């Protein structure tokens, strides 16, 4: 396994109290596999992403559990070791591309910097060749790469910047690409272009991808497997077709039925009543139980574990053979 997240708990200390952002998350990703992590805002999906590259803010702590990248624990690494895996093994693309580039340096120079670091690591420190950057730009389908590399970030569009960053990541030849909402800040035609690009690159570079998104339709288009998060827990994990076409967890079903697919004359949309819970004072038992139409007694007292059911895994008492007492 390239990535193994085992029973990961992450807490944030805040003025309002301890926020339990992740509550025992188990997730593994194999080589050349793409997994989409789907959830609403505050479900903990971004926290999981930045936990893997150890970019958690200062008020966050790894409470328990472990993250293994290529068999090595990320949590116990020293800073030097962490820097060594960033880029070479795991590369992260963030939502707002403008914040990811230095505004006062030409994009070509910034990509060249990535190449220099790679050279240093491989012990082959050498003059960097702009031709390599041009090649990388061509790989991510940037038109007129020679022109773009002389530009400053503010002269590029959001889609172009996101591509520059992906190109920069690919030059480092990582094994795992973590993309946190990489298409939320761009238009739908550009989003489709970037999704297509990531799918192609997965093949060309043999990449594994962890794709974090709030849009379940995007997840369906990009992933081999889908993991659904709710209030810090994985509630369903399985092959894409299974999760979408025969979802198990009531939350997954609810999320899918909320998406407008018809016309208003054919009836109103299904909704999930209520709001996502507070993570400072989460509900007892299954955190979804106050909104769940199938709630039973056991749901209000005991939190179900993620267990296998058919081809998927689901954390719900409806499917559980676990002891309910």
């Amino acid at each position: 396994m390239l990535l193994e997240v085992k029973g990961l708990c992450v807490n944030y200390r805040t003025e309002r109290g301890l926020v339990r952002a992740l509550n025992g998350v188990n997730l593994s990703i194999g080589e050349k596999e793409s997994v989409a992590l789907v959830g609403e805002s505050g479900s903990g999906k971004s926290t999981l992403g930045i936990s893997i590259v150890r970019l958690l803010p200062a008020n966050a702590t790894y409470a328990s559990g472990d993250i293994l990248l290529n068999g090595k624990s990320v949590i116990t690494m020293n800073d030097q070791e962490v820097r060594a895996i960033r880029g070479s093994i795991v590369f992260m693309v963030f939502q707002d591309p403008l914040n990811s580039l230095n505004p006062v340096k030409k994009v070509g120079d910034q990509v060249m910097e990535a190449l220099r670091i790679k050279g240093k690591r491989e012990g082959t420190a050498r003059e960097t060749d702009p031709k390599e950057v041009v090649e990388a730009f061509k790989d991510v389908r940037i038109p007129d790469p020679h022109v773009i590399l002389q530009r400053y970030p503010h002269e590029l569009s959001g889609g172009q910047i996101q591509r520059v960053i992906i190109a920069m990541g690919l030059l480092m030849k990582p094994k795992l690409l973590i993309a946190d909402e990489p298409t939320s800040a761009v238009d739908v035609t550009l989003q489709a272009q970037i999704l297509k690009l990531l799918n192609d690159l997965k093949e060309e570079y043999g990449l594994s991808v962890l794709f974090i998104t709030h849009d379940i339709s995007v997840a369906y288009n990009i992933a081999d497997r889908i993991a659904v998060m709710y209030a810090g827990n994985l509630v369903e994990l399985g092959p894409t077709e299974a999760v979408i076409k025969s979802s198990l967890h009531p939350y997954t079903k609810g999320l899918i039925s909320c998406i407008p697919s018809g016309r208003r004359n054919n009836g109103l949309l299904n909704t999930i009543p209520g709001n996502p819970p507070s993570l400072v004072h989460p509900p007892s038992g299954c955190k979804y139980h106050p909104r769940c139409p199938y709630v039973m007694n056991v749901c209000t007292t005991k939190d179900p574990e993620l267990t296998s059911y058919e081809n998927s895994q689901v954390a719900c008492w409806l499917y559980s053979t676990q002891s309910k007492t």
Partner: protein
Amino acid sequence: MERTILGEQQSLIKTTGLTKTFLASKRGLLESLSRKPASYVRAVDRVQLEIGKREILALVGESGSGKTTLGLLLCTLENPTLGDIYFDGEKVQKSNLKKARRKIQMVFQNPTDSLDPRMNVRSIIMEGLQKFPGDKEKKQRQFEDSMKAVGLDPMEFGQRRPRDLSGGQKQRVAIARAIASNPEFIVLDEPTSALDASIQAQVLNLLVGLHDKYGFTYLLITHNIAVARFISDRVAVMYAGRLVEVGSTDEIMTAPKHPYTQALLKSVPTLETKELQPPTGETPSLLNPPSGCRYHPRCPYAMEICKTTDPELSRVENSLVACWLYPAPRVVSSMSSSEK
């Protein structure tokens, strides 16, 4: 009377040649003295649009296509550079601006930004009623009725501040503020795009319910095709400041005519298909828009004429399309000229 695109329906809003340009950069003294010509961005360019009474029109397009500017123009929050707006048959001008504005309201994308954080919900809604006639009791009643209409208890929520509300509740307050004065026309600018999927569905249902109950006319601005399909009667597609296609929602969703509309629909990820076929290239700069049809550099069917002459909206079957692929009898607007 010749059948128009709206059928027998009466139009509430009509625009003719509506254009809005913005100065691209500030001109200081030096620039003025050097007599360098100012450069302008044409955010909205010669838009002919009609919205029928009680109709829901979805305005779709990508960022920078000018859809928000068009929304602001129709709300009379921006003054058009050229062209006119007719509200209920009357041309909107300085003398009747106030009158028209009483019938128009707007709901913005992000309720956290559009609600004053220091005011409580009651004052947020009552503030909007200040310029309307009626005594205190009537306004209190309007406040309570509008809160109930959006599904919030006026007693429970009246004294709360925006920070004590969830995203969905905030957007409900913004909608209550818009409907409190009983307007006819409401511009909804991406009303659900800041909300999570489960909350988006609640708000869309609410908007449909309010439309059916009170007969509001909506212009819903959105980049979300699924939302547009769900809620609208007709769809208008905007590209780089121009309307490229206007038609019934069924027509546009099942048989789009303009190559851009076709590409846009094939870019939307859905749970039905995994075949995304996005157009190549990016949306053009409005500072230097392409000559002729603005879509021609990205269009797979581009012809010689597309590079030189900008097509006008013209009737193709039941839709209006601005594209040289459809050599149809030209009409100036959705109302045929013979009718004037």
